[in-house]
């Protein structure tokens, strides 16, 4: 009983600390989101003054037109590819940061990794546009170095979208993996090697399994927003950059069909949640 009292009084004293966060979550996320749920079941936006009614038509639209499903699959593939590239690029970087570099050089490299976070997203994307277009920085630089003439024009292509998204999201992978890698005691690596394991075997059997939580967290942080992304596909992908996210954006800013946009968003949310739910037991076992 003493314990129960203590825990209750603990909760009460924690309330002032919790309240701001919950208040903020309620106002900033829960309210707009419930408004969107409401919109997604309407025929018209009530703001325009036109008459409206409840309907399931917006959700039905997704299933009646194969375009939406095709785009959703394309977006899921984009999310998967970007996540894989982020692992390929981010994990080794995190490993070097956590286990090889020490002191000042670690701080310097860390700063470089986090730098994309501090620059404006649009600026980031437009600078990629400068680099990737024909006659752009990459094209000019490569032609200056190489003895033969090549044409690099990645602008408005699928690879350009991947490059832009990977650049934006790779810091998440570096940070989450860095945290788990750093927590791995160096003596575990030494123990593995003293038992006759090569560096690669130690990596496969000790380091990667122990850093799995970081990989999973990073993958979830990257996959979910990339599937719904629209800015990078639109600017770097051009005509080829039509994805599920850009279609949702169109409903809100171009076509002003908010109910359809909202319905498409919630379908995406449901799909992502299902994917995470299905993947989580597998990932938990791996971790």
């Amino acid at each position, binding site marked *: 009983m003493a314990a129960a009292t203590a825990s209750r009084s603990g909760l009460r004293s924690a309330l002032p600390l919790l309240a701001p966060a919950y208040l903020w979550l309620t106002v900033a996320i829960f309210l707009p989101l419930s408004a969107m749920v409401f919109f997604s079941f309407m025929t018209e936006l009530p703001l325009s003054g036109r008459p409206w009614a409840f309907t399931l038509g917006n959700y039905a639209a997704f299933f009646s037109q194969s375009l939406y499903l095709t785009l959703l699959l394309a977006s899921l593939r984009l999310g998967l590819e970007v996540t894989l590239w982020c692992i390929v690029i981010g994990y080794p970087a995190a490993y070097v940061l956590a286990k090889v570099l020490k002191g000042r050089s670690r701080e310097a490299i860390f700063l470089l990794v986090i730098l994309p976070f501090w620059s404006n997203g649009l600026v980031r994307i437009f600078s990629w546009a400068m680099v990737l277009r024909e006659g752009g920085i990459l094209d000019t630089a490569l032609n200056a170095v190489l003895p033969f003439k090549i044409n690099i024009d990645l602008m408005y292509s699928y690879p350009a979208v991947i490059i832009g998204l990977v650049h934006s999201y790779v810091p998440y992978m570096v940070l989450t993996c860095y945290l788990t890698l750093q927590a791995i*005691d160096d*003596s*575990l690596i*030494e123990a593995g090697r*003293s038992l*006759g394991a*090569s560096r690669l*075997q130690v990596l496969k059997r000790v380091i990667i399994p122990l850093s799995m939580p970081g990989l999973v967290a990073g993958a979830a942080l990257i996959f979910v927003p990339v599937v719904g992304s629209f800015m990078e596909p639109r600017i770097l992908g051009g005509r080829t950059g039509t994805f599920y996210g850009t279609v949702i954006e169109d409903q809100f800013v171009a076509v002003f069909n908010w109910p359809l946009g909202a319905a498409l968003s919630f379908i995406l949310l449901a799909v992502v949640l299902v994917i995470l739910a299905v993947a989580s037991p597998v990932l938990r076992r791996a971790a």
Partner: protein
Amino acid sequence: MAGVQVSDVSRSFGAHKALDDVSIDFADGGFYALLGPSGSGKTTLLRQIAGFDFPDSGRITIGGESVERVPVEKRRIGMVFQNYALFPNMSVADNVAFGLSVRGEVKAVIATEVQRALDLVQLGKLGGRRPHQLSGGQRQRVALARAIVTKPRVLLLDEPLGALDKALRVDMQIELKRIQREIGITTIFVTHDQEEALTMSDRIGILRDGRLVQEGPPEEIYDRPKTEFAATFLGDANIFRGDTTGNGIRLADGTAIAAGAGATLAAGGKASCAVRPERIRIATDAGAPDGNANMLKGQVSKRIFAGNNSTYFVERGGQTLKVIVQNTGMERLAEGQDVVLRWSPESTVLIAAG
């Protein structure tokens, strides 16, 4: 199984000389303790033998094969770490199986060997547990089983008992010694605990500031330390400093102390004498003159009773001497009492100054 030879090994980290021209011969099947205060280079030396770090100069051989440039995974050593370093993502059995499985052993062989190793450390039934479900002593045993299951040539132990409480440590000392005898493996053991070094090892190497101070069997180092450091670091010792007389020293106040053991030094220079506290007899009167025994007068300043013995602190000419007396029920001296200390020259070790 193999012996290990370390010859003229030096290793510096920046300006710091972690190992300075160290040579030790670890004979096949022996149990060695590397003893020294922190920063003495004992762990650095162990890491050179293991192959986690390479010497700047010098040679290391295992079983006669030169290994200075051989990476750790090719040296066929077994190592037990201070913090156990068990893989938290694997069961106890998988931890023990790791070394065999990276070698590509057959599953059936692995299972038998793992069970045998776990039985040896008396954890035969706990193979399915995870490391975090074990006590400190059990983890230590798993680490040991994991290190020996691959039949390494040398077993290296880096302060393996440091994290255990005292009672458990004594148990593990006996256990470790039993297992070492059973498989007869050359074992090198790093510790800063002098008692552990004395009770467990066949030979002890004392290190200080990256240099090997003295090396030999425990009895030899304890009875005939070659330096003041060895005398005071391994066990307790009363140190007298003075001028050499050839077979002893003369203190500043003219008292002569005869030494029957230790270095032979020409008269004239500076030297020290070391006497173990338990070798000194304490009495309230001079009694009958006792041949050539060393004799000093002093006053008891403090007595610490420890059950089976008492430690007396005796003030004498500005120096505090320690005397340990077994509790025979005879002598109980009060603080402040004038006493006479007596000990034989054979119990006195002459040590060159420096």
